[in-house]
């Protein structure tokens, strides 16, 4: 750690991992409800579990993005953070807001929560991923603005590297597009059309700038490859991302009432969306092969390469599987979508955040470069457990989805939704087992922070 103020990143990372645990636990509850329909009913109905699952994901990813920014921006800018106090304050504001919101989900019925938070004044609740009460949304905007101000001022007064600029653009875009969460017209088609400006333009747009910047930072630090090389490829990759991804939004406009030309525009451009992910994979492996030194933090490197591969598989390949409109006609809103969602979020955003946590945490905990060997071994085990479990979750959901599309939408005698769900329950059981393995991986991951802490720090032979 080169700057004192980088330390504010630590609570963000810890809270992020805690929320990650909550996310996975509620995921397991939902997974079980898929096959044991009355599990925890009516105490925790499926919709509540799902809200906690998805909202915890979003909040922990945002927390980790913020932690990553607080860690890497001062180091890149070569100056202390503009206001560490503000960063810490915002951490608590964000954490309390998130905790209160989750408590609201679990303790109150959703309609009561809507009433208590006066949703009727500015109705924004009850839309997928944007279930937070309006007041929480306003809180998110305030935290985001304070965060951007803090980061922006730091970058302004320090060295302006490409990594910092790309990160800042991504974070600014994140804040700007979130504003569409407040637009909720009574016209459902308009509602859905602009809802995607938050969701798609986040995950297939500006978030990828953040991903690219964090990945580039970790590669610069761990491989010692010339920054100039990494930065120009970063530009090319994010350029391709936005070139394909912005019009690629069209793949969400096929069946929600928008004009039918979106089927062509959306199909053509989103068919190209795997390209930037493929470039990222090739780029990451090339940089690692050209490394000038062997960094003692092996797990960080593993997570970085894992991100590049799994983002390509989850976002690129699994996205392409059902993005062409003639295919999507049968797979839209099926378990195929769930399969893609799981691997894409894990591969792109969960893994990049663990990458930066893996790189930064040993330094934040006062080590020179890396954890002791034993801790590293545990962490690498957790990598394989979680990643392989996620691959299987994805495969089982894909199997479920293919069968679902066939039985419910394509066969001779299309069958009702619930009848089909019964028939594919085997896949849901298998998915749940894979989910349990994922949880074990997560436990191993958390344990890796505690094992062998008194051992000497790992070093490389060179």
């Amino acid at each position, binding site marked *: 750690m080169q700057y004192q103020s980088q330390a504010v990143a630590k609570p963000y990372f810890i809270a992020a991992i805690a929320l990650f645990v909550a996310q996975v636990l509620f995921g397991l509850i939902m997974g079980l409800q898929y096959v044991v329909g009355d599990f925890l009913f009516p105490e925790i109905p499926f919709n509540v579990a799902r809200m906690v699952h998805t909202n915890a994901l979003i909040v922990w990813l945002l927390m980790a993005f913020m932690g990553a920014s607080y860690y890497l921006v001062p180091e890149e800018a070569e100056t202390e953070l503009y206001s560490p106090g503000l960063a810490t304050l915002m951490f608590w504001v964000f954490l309390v807001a998130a905790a209160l919101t989750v408590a609201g989900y679990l303790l109150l019925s959703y309609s009561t929560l809507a009433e208590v938070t006066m949703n009727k004044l500015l109705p924004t609740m009850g839309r997928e991923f944007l279930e937070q009460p309006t007041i929480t949304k306003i809180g998110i905007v305030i935290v985001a603005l304070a965060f951007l101000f803090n980061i922006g001022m730091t970058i302004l007064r320090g060295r302006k590297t490409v990594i910092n600029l790309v990160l800042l653009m991504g974070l600014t875009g994140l804040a700007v597009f979130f504003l569409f969460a407040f637009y909720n017209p009574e016209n459902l088609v308009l509602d859905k059309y602009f809802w995607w400006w938050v969701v798609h333009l986040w995950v297939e747009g500006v978030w990828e700038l953040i991903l690219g910047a964090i990945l580039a930072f970790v590669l610069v630090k761990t491989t010692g490859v010339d920054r100039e090389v990494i930065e120009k490829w970063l530009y090319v990759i994010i350029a391709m991302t936005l070139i394909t991804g912005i019009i690629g939004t069209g793949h969400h406009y096929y069946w929600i009432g928008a004009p039918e030309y979106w089927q062509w525009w959306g199909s*053509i451009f989103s068919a190209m969306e795997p390209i930037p992910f493929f470039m990222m994979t090739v780029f990451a492996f090339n940089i690692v092969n050209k490394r000038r030194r062997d960094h003692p933090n092996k797990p960080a490197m593993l997570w970085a390469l894992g991100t590049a591969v799994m983002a390509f598989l989850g976002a690129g390949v699994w996205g392409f599987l059902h993005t062409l409109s003639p295919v999507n006609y049968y797979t839209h809103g099926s378990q195929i979508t769930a399969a893609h969602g799981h691997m894409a979020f894990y591969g792109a955003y969960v893994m990049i955040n663990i990458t930066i946590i893996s790189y930064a945490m040993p330094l934040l905990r006062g080590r020179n470069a890396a954890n002791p060997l034993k801790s590293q071994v545990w962490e690498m085990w957790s990598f394989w457990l979680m990643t392989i479990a996620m691959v299987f979750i994805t495969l089982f959901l894909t199997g479920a989805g293919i069968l679902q599309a066939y039985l419910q939408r394509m066969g001779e005698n299309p069958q009702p939704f619930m009848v089909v769900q019964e028939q594919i329950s085997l896949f849901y059981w298998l998915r749940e087992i894979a989910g349990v393995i994922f949880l074990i991986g997560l436990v191993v991951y958390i344990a890796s922070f505690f094992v062998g802490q008194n051992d000497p720090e790992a070093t490389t032979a060179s």
Partner: protein
Amino acid sequence: MTADRSVLPSNYPPGDLAIWIFILAELAVFAIFFAAYAFTRLQHVALFNEHQLTLDREAALINTLALITSSYFVVRAVSAIKVGDRRRCVHWLLAALSMGLLFLIVKSVEYVQHYSEGINLSSNIFYMFYLSLTFFHFMHVIMGMVILAAIAVMAARGRYSRQEHTGVESGASYWHMVDLVWLILFPLVYVMR
């Protein structure tokens, strides 16, 4: 050194690698669009043939000639900077830009005509393709002109020389790509039936 390069085969195309990656991506999109046009037409031959006749072929011919000519002017601009003649380089670029402008004007007149007839992307599948392809290309002409204009300004300010003129070559390559796409688009959409 410079002369060697024009005689001996080089390993790389003229211009910056980044612009070539961009060109590759653009060409891929257009290629998919062209194939999609051809195969969609297969299912609606009568409709495509009927509405193709409503297009203005004279305007398209003028535009074809304008783009080919501007491409040629850009070749002259590159060749001028290669011998270090900045002034002529700028003049050729301005000439190319004026041809680009001609294209934009002619195409805009066509669009105004369509608009007054109430034709839009949702009129039918032929107009969907016609408008999508030509408008996407239209935006590329604007983009190419912005690049050429930027290069002309930098050339005028003396940023390029006989030794270092990668920027001119990059812009030229992009502009030729815009021309190249139109060379296929024109017969495919306006002529072939």
